[in-house]
């Protein structure tokens, strides 16, 4: 009798047993907790990507501009430019760091923390 139980029938019973087992039910709130965690990671990844893209674009524009200047006025203009930067690095370096810090806080940290 039961030893003759068909595989198909047995599979149906096993499926039913597994489906109704409470251990297989996802605990309440776990999905939302996981989504929140992943959303924060996803947002951080997107913000960093956007920041790097924008920074890259600005640097590219500066490089093109420098190329155009060098093309018009000769390569000496770039040498003079870098000499001026080297002469005033005590002002330029902190200004760049302060600028980058402000942009990172504004574009990444504040947006990221607002989701927390």
């Amino acid at each position: 009798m039961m030893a003759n139980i068909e595989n198909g029938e047995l599979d149906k019973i096993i499926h039913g047993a597994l489906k109704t087992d409470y251990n297989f039910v996802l605990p309440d709130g776990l999905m939302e907790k996981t989504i929140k965690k992943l959303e924060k990671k996803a947002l951080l990844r997107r913000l960093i990507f956007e920041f790097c893209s924008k920074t890259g674009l600005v640097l590219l524009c500066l490089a093109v501009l420098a190329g155009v200047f060098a093309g018009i006025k000769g390569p000496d203009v770039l040498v003079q430019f870098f000499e001026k930067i080297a002469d005033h690095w005590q002002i330029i370096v902190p200004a760049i760091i302060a600028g980058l810090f402000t942009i990172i806080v504004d574009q990444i940290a504040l947006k990221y923390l607002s989701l927390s």
Partner: protein
Amino acid sequence: MDDQTLIHKVAEGDVPSVRLLVERHRNLIWHIIVSMTGRNKDNEDLFQDVFLKIFKNCRDFRGKSKLSTWIGAITHHVCVDYLRRKKLETTLWDYNNDLQLTRHIQAELNGKKAEKEDINRLLMAAINKLPVDYHTVITLYHLEEFSCHDISEITGMPEGTVKSYISRGRSALREILTALVPDLAEILSDY
């Protein structure tokens, strides 16, 4: 949204896609975790670890297999690591000699006519006593309805081994039912 687009958007950090990914695959991941580690206080952490790993590695998904298979394989890997770390590997369960289980089930039925719920509990007790690999294969095959080929990709076992586990698992469960539920034919008509 198809799987390839979904995972691509997740890789870009698209927040709604992340939610969709979790909603689509939460049950698969939870089922694999439960089948491999049982009722465990660390299951919720494992669940989150799996999703973090998927998120971290989603650029590696090339679409050669189904997304669910790829996710299943990651989940399996995370659970194997966990079991190894905790040294929770179980030994092969000999269902014929497991008197404790049989006594427990017989005591539960205690001469009364078995009902559908009894069959379910009985089967789950039997399935839960199976070794981890059997439990995982049975869950993937019967609950998630994966093919033997997909299960082989998820678990890294040869397809022949998967087929053999399914067949031996069936035999074990069939014998338990045969021994303990004399009125199964009647109950089967309800399914």
